[in-house]
């Protein structure tokens, strides 16, 4: 049962369009920069694929090229923010916040300056590039840092809104983006607020809550529909803000359902699911299952092939849902 207050796309289970979250970021950045002249974009030799080229075209004097130097990307970004700019530093997530993690820790998070870290090509859905480019650790790395806001948008429109939202905060932020197209199921009217999870599906008498982020939110919706058809009610949460997490909503859906499945394109150790477990262990412990990568690296392949192999496809979410209900 799609929640009507979420104003989701009418095509949600039909012929739905796809767009990568990086596109939404590219549009959002131009929009944010029009409203705030302090915004600058810094990129480490990935102008086209991180969609920063749209900003560069619009604001050539506010674009700064780094070359292949991610440590410099973070530290020049720190200096720009310390001076008074709002820099969006862009690369692939394996390189930033991967390679430059210590620079982010010391010169951005501890220094507490408003650098906006944009990690594109995160998760298995990078596809054919293989394990070296499939960031599966970045949510964990970033959510461990004090001062850091961590957001994983579910589709391009949500990524656009998230970009506009982080442009307005005073602190550092991490925005995780994907390479491949994700179903565009939210609309400009869908609410978005940092730290406020969106309940997008709710059945009568729900027995399991599917809490997802990023690409996995749409898979969770499809799984909810399948479960419904099998007579099992559920709730689906688009848990886009990993930090600060919406503890109230997470606790409330766990209370209603009594069982939780978390779904993310990330190592299950340290990711969004772990963060949910940390909340529920305190507030309302319930049986949980974790959809994600279990202590393995990725590999080349098309996203759907990889999701099937790593048991992150719709079928695996449905099975996890039934399994966790059985553990109540």
């Amino acid at each position, binding site marked *: 049962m799609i929640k009507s207050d979420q104003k989701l796309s009418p095509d949600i289970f039909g012929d739905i369009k796809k767009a990568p979250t990086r596109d939404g970021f590219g549009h959002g950045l131009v929009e944010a920069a029009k409203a705030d002249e302090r915004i*600058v974009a810094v990129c480490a030799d990935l102008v086209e694929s991180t969609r920063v080229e749209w900003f560069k075209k619009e604001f050539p*004097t*506010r674009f*700064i090229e*780094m*070359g292949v*130097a991610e*440590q*410099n990307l973070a*530290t*020049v*970004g*720190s*200096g*720009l*923010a*310390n*001076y*008074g*700019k709002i*820099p969006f530093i862009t690369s692939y997530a394996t390189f930033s916040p991967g390679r430059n993690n*210590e*620079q982010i820790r*010391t*010169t951005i998070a*501890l*220094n*507490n300056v408003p650098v906006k870290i944009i990690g594109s090509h995160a998760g298995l859905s990078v596809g054919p590039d293989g394990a070296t480019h499939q960031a599966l650790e970045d949510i964990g790395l970033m959510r461990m840092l004090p001062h850091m806001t961590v957001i994983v948008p579910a589709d391009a429109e949500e990524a656009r809104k998230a970009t506009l939202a982080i442009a307005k905060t005073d602190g550092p932020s991490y925005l995780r983006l994907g390479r491949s197209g994700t179903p565009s199921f939210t609309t400009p009217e869908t609410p978005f607020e940092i730290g406020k999870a969106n309940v997008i599906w709710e059945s009568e008498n729900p027995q399991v809550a599917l809490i997802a982020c990023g690409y996995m939110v749409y898979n969770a919706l499809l799984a909810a529909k399948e479960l419904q058809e099998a007579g099992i009610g559920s709730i689906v949460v688009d848990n886009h803000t990993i930090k600060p997490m919406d503890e109230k909503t997470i606790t409330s859906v766990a209370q209603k359902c009594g069982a939780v499945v978390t779904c993310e394109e990330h190592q299950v150790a340290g990711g969004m699911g772990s963060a949910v477990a940390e909340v529920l262990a305190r507030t309302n412990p319930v049986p949980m299952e974790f959809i994600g990568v279990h202590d393995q690296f990725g590999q080349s392949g098309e996203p759907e092939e990889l999701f099937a192999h790593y048991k992150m496809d719709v079928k695996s979410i449905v099975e996890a849902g039934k399994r966790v209900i059985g553990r109540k």
Partner: protein
Amino acid sequence: MALTDDVIKELELKANDIRISLIDMLEDAGSGHTAGPLGMADIFTLFYFHILNHDPKDPAWAERDRLILSNGHITPIRYATMAHAGYFPLEELKTLRKFGSRLQGHPERERLPGLENTSGPLGSGLSQAAGMAYGARMDGKKFRTYCFMSDGEQQAGNVWEGAMFAGNNKLSNLTAVIDRNNIQIDGMTENVMPVEPLADKWRAFNWHVIEVDGHNMRAVDDAVNEAKAIFEKPTLIIAHTIPGKGIKEIEFDYTWHGKPPTKEEETKFLKELRTLKGKIEASHND
């Protein structure tokens, strides 16, 4: 203010007072670095009391010159100099490295107004200074950005990413100073991992390079002024310094990189520095 002989004498006496505060605070702290801070006492004094355009009563003044300290472990000399310059009371120096202190073992920007940056892990200060200088130039700001680095730090890759970036962007409002004291934790830099030929390396990265005696206030001041007159490139000043400068028995001794004086050593060192005061006065009265 012209750097007359009288002014230099005052600055040298001030540097000696700051060294006295430094030895005192390091012994109180019971841990910390001694050699590097003593070696940079003259340069910090010259910057805070002569070169920098700043206001200790308004550390957030938007037009101030920025001084980024990249090698955060020598922060005791920055703290001591800032206290003498009026940023905070001298008594607070005794809180160095103590629980609840604004004077953390390595500097944290948010804890103490005027610090400009958080540092400790080496190699990342130059890029931060370059980011500030780049942002300032975008806005047509006139202030200058300075970055102090160590020589051992030149082994870190991030330094060269920053050097390449600043050179490419001709950031002439940025001046870096390397404390070339030849020591690092594991020994002499040229034995641990050689950084020479240092000047040639920086010139190859499109920097204007000046080498000076880091204890000669006039030479350092001249180099800073030369940097202001170079509009095509950022400038690097390689300041040759003596680690442990001012206390004969620890000068050039790399084992003093990362330890503080004991109570007995403190008494001995303070006595030597007080004697030095008379020598400075005498040398300028010749």
